[in-house]
């Protein structure tokens, strides 16, 4: 038995190689959530469109993505597709896989958020002369956001952790770099605990941010909080 090595543990806790890995994890999360929200909106609007073709394409897309594991998708994109002449770098393949996944899951979240806004709201917005775009921007989206943000926040949390799957195609994020160090130094437990702590740090920080955002979009719905704000 080797026992727990405190010196090694603290050394890796501040190791720049690991720290950079954590930064990559954070970057991957920010990139795939941002692009995922944009793509998710497109898929959601297609899904809700009165044109059957668009709606069916969107349905097929979410069915396909949500019905298969990200791990399999990444391997297909990075390892499989070159076989038919389509080549992506590790970063490209990772981003494509992550964004495609987020878009599929988020589109469902966005769709339910938008349909939760009562019909009367769109009539009221139109009645004051808003165009469809203005109605979306000033009336529908802010109200949908209140419904969307809790599950969206969970998706960010999930995405922070899911990025680790990209280590399988040698994306140099937090987990991959931890594994590389383990192969050199054999401090398995210490290094994995360090990685776990970094994930925990990032998810906890996000939790705090999410609570602030939720409070912002909750205005107008909580009588006590609104009254306090007005004093």
């Amino acid at each position, binding site marked *: 038995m080797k026992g727990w090595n405190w010196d090694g543990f603290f050394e890796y806790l501040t190791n720049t190689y690991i720290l950079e890995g954590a930064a990559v994890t954070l970057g991957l999360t920010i990139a795939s959530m941002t692009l995922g929200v944009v793509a998710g909106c497109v898929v959601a609007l297609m899904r809700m469109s009165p044109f059957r073709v668009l709606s069916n394409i969107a349905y097929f897309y979410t069915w396909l993505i949500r019905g298969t594991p990200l791990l399999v998708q990444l391997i297909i994109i990075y390892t499989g597709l070159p076989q038919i002449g389509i080549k992506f770098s590790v970063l490209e393949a990772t981003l494509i896989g992550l964004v495609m996944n987020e878009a599929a899951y988020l589109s469902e979240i966005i769709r339910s958020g938008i349909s939760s806004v009562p019909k*009367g*709201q769109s009539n009221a917005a139109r*009645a004051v002369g808003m165009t469809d775009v*203005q109605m979306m921007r000033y009336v529908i989206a802010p109200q949908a956001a209140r419904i969307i943000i809790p599950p969206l926040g969970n998706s960010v949390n999930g995405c922070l952790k899911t990025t680790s799957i990209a280590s399988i195609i040698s994306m140099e994020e937090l987990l991959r770099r931890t594994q590389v160090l383990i192969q050199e130094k054999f401090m398995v437990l210490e290094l994995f605990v360090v990685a776990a702590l970094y994930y925990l740090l990032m998810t906890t920080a996000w939790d705090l941010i999410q609570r602030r955002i939720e409070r912002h*979009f909750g*205005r107008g719905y909580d009588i006590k909080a*609104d009254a306090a704000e*007005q004093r």
Partner: protein
Amino acid sequence: MQPMIVLEDVDKWYGKNFQVLKSCSLTVSPGEVVVICGPSGSGKSTLIKCVNGLEPVQGGRISVKDMEVTGPRTNLPKLRSHVGMVFQHFDLFPHMTVTENICIGQTRVLGRTQAEAEAKTAALLERVGMSDHARKYPIQLSGGQQQRIAIARALAMDPIAMLFDEPTSALDPEMITEVLDVMVELAKEGMTMMVVTHEMGFARKVADRVVFMDGGEVVEDTPKDEFFASPKSQRAVEFLSKILDH
């Protein structure tokens, strides 16, 4: 005088089989107050929503002042910015304060500055007796208060006509008067109004004409006094006895 609102042989279907409006014709002159009544499901809400193009029609034509509502190239947002509408369930924007509710159309649609919009809003809040509530959210207000804000929101656009769809029927009885008072005031100032309501007291006080609808048809369109004294159709007689009894 050029009429303000004209509906000419308007037909509308929901789906293929259900005709909700059957050749409805109606003219409202500037400054006129027309009350529309009729049994539930007779098409009153649908009819009034067609006037500002919230519902498309399949036949006939509708115009407001010199704007064609039913034309293929109509700029509907522009048209609607000139026609105020008040709904049964108020439909204030819940995520905006009272002031924001009344400002949003002025700034985003009419292009007024924030300062102009807020000045106008303050004046309107005064007028509907809601000055103390400017910074509140709709959820903090009673139904009657919300409806008065909804009227202010519509008036903020300086409309040439106002449409009301049962503005008091979702209100507790003790709040009906405060909303009707605002509407009576508006009528007396010469606003052109189309009002779907069963408040016959309001109709008696300010209506010029009463339109009675049943089964998607305009059954009667008569001057107010005539309508109350001697309705022409049997259906109107029955309807009146029902709502005046209770």
